[in-house]
């Protein structure tokens, strides 16, 4: 059983956060909210999203799992203006999701959850540094790096207490430093890892400019990116595996 009403804005934010990595996903409809966990086909980036029942206008569920084609559902959500409400109801018989937006009714065929790639475990990582930063600063770093390179190094200099970004292109380079004054918070420990901008650009699309984003970093370790959605009633965690630093 699943029946919920949610603002179009929250629904779109939720879907966008997952669709940057995968086309289809399993959605757990738990009593206290929904959870989505998915990893991209190359096993490089994963997302773990939670949206509590409080993020919905109304919410009733008893623990089922459905498989969803994300781009299809995004298209439907796109029919709603941001102020509008979206009603979702699962038909257990037909395994279809009924969606209503201001008189518009859409019946979405669901995907067999067993046919969807297995959900990943969240890696238990002991990361040496934690940076809390505004979403717009991540956007700035990613955008500038993308002008010169397809890779980006993220690091923390423990002695100088700063977070830095390096991007080296064939001809041009980008370097960005943010001190504790420019950051919301910094728990310094030496860390540096190289990441593919292809992935980071996609993840960046899902990060709101005004969000407080927590980055966890290590030495040649995956990056964790955490930020709240739906006015704190939900959260997104991205985990991105590093590239090997050849030089």
């Amino acid at each position, binding site marked *: 059983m699943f029946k919920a009403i949610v603002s179009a804005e929250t629904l779109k934010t939720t879907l966008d956060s997952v669709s940057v990595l995968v086309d289809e996903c399993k959605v757990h409809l738990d009593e206290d909210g929904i959870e989505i966990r998915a990893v991209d*086909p190359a096993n490089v*980036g994963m997302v773990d999203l939670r949206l509590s029942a409080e993020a919905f206008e109304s919410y009733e569920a008893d623990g089922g799992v459905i498989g969803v084609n994300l781009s299809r559902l995004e298209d439907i959500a796109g029919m709603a203006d941001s102020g509008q409400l979206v009603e979702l109801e699962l038909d257990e018989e037909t395994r279809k999701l009924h969606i209503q937006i201001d008189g518009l009714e859409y019946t979405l065929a669901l995907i067999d959850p067993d046919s969807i790639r*297995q959900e990943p475990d969240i*890696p238990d990582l002991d990361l040496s540094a934690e940076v809390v930063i505004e979403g717009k600063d991540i956007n700035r770093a990613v955008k500038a790096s993308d002008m010169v390179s*397809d890779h980006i190094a993220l690091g923390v200099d423990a002695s100088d207490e700063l977070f830095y970004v390096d991007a080296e292109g*064939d001809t041009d380079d980008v370097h960005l430093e943010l001190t504790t004054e420019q950051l919301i918070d910094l728990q310094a420990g030496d860390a540096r890892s190289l990441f593919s901008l292809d992935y980071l650009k996609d993840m960046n699309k899902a990060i709101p400019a005004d969000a407080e984003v927590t980055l966890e970093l290590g030495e040649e370790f995956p990056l964790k990116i955490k930020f709240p959605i739906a006015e704190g009633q939900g959260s997104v965690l991205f*985990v991105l595996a590093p590239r090997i630093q050849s030089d």
Partner: protein
Amino acid sequence: MKFASFAERAAAMEAEPADLETVALVSDLFAAAEDDLAVVARFVQGRVFPAWDERTLDVGPSTCYTAIARAAGPNVDADDVEARVAEVGEVGAVAEEYEFGGQTGLGAFGAGGGGDDRTVASVYEDLVALASTEGAGSESAKVDRLFGLFNESERREARYLARLVLAEMRIGVGEGTVRDAIADAFDVPVDAVERALQVSNDYGLVAETAREEGEGGVAAMDLEVGRPVQPMLAQAGTASDALAEWGTAAVETKFDGARVQVHWDGEEVSVYSRNMEDVTDALPEVGEFVREHCDAPAILDGEVVAVADDGEPLPFQQVLRRFRRKHDVAQARERVTVELRAFDCLHAGGDDLLDVPLRERYDRLRETIDAGVGDLLLTDDPDVVAAHEADALAAGHEGIMLKDPESTYSPGKRGQNWLKRKPDVETLDCVVVGAEWGEGRRANLFGTFHIAVRDGDDHLPVGKVATGITDEELAELTERLEQHVATQSGRDVTFEPAVVFEVGYEEIQTSPTYESGYALRFPRFVSVRDDKAPADADSLTRLERLAESQ
């Protein structure tokens, strides 16, 4: 089997120049393939799916280059890869140059999945998932998946992965090699393997059957309704050769249509093109017709032809317009209706008929479907053949087919048992619609004649003819045509339609110059068709058909 060991064996095949040795290498591969036999039997040919299977990877070079570039990083882009391919000449060698694996996977950090050695089976699974990617954003999803595959590849694996994805293995293994290797690996006669491949169109299935069930199993493989086979093909030939060889020939009208194979199991009708593409949805009336007129189960071979409202055949290109249509089928159907002309029957009422002589297959065809079957005329008389051909051409068809009535049906084979007889010399009967006065010695004679085909009441120019006419003929023509001059301007004259020329030519070309849309290449005067009035001259429709069939 590890994908790396498949790649190693593929490299050995590529390095082996001798055909027999290559067969031995493929045979060894099959013997060692275990659960992956069906997949490797296709992979060695650069195929992911069986030929009858509708699925395709649909990956173009640029998608492949983008994925290679991303896996190759840092700062390699698709243009770099493309430039290397242009230099080196093929994608496999380029993929092999890069060092992949720079991107680590989450599996290495305890996030489940990944980490295992790549097998032929896991590569196949990934490619299946790739083939099922569709819709908006599918291009980038394909790049993502391919990136994942390349990222995990050692150099040699990358070489063959890139080639496999682009369906060009270049290891000297053709269909015949695989056939011989299956026979060799599992000790089954080559003929039996060949036949099984013909009925199933599935190298993987035949290889597995040969291994599991031996010669008996392979020999027992049958057609399956819903799984297309390659159509039997015809060669060009003459009636006299056919009659000398066979005594009696089966003669049928060659319809100017597109070849189809119709499968009907009582529940569903499927229509396949000559290349085994599923064209069922594009031609709904064929399905409706078969449901109404044909007993199930059946596999029919035939042509679909386009017909005008009055039942007259329409040019081949009208059929093609329907064939390639994915959207707005109903509207297209209103403009051009297609009809089935069945001429052979591969399966009827539970019996495979491939090994049955044509004359019996034709009888079964007649029993199975009660309409839409062309006539099959058995004769040993060359005059009867010629008369049938004349009738067929007069009715606007393409010509005739000559078949050995005792021959069996060999899928995919272009043999001597089916002959396509076409008219020996193509000529067109054109209306003379204008001319130009000659120069010098011929100043008082017409020199160049403007010729046209009929289109309803109009006459559309197709070219000018000036060669092949003797001075004597020219004088006679001038005298005759002067009576029909409609307008005159300088050296140019137009005529009322009155005289019909038989005109020979090398080729019909499409042309923006003439209103008909076509131009005759090297037109030459053959004769004046005194027996024909302008209204009997050839039509634009016939010109289009000739253009299509050349």
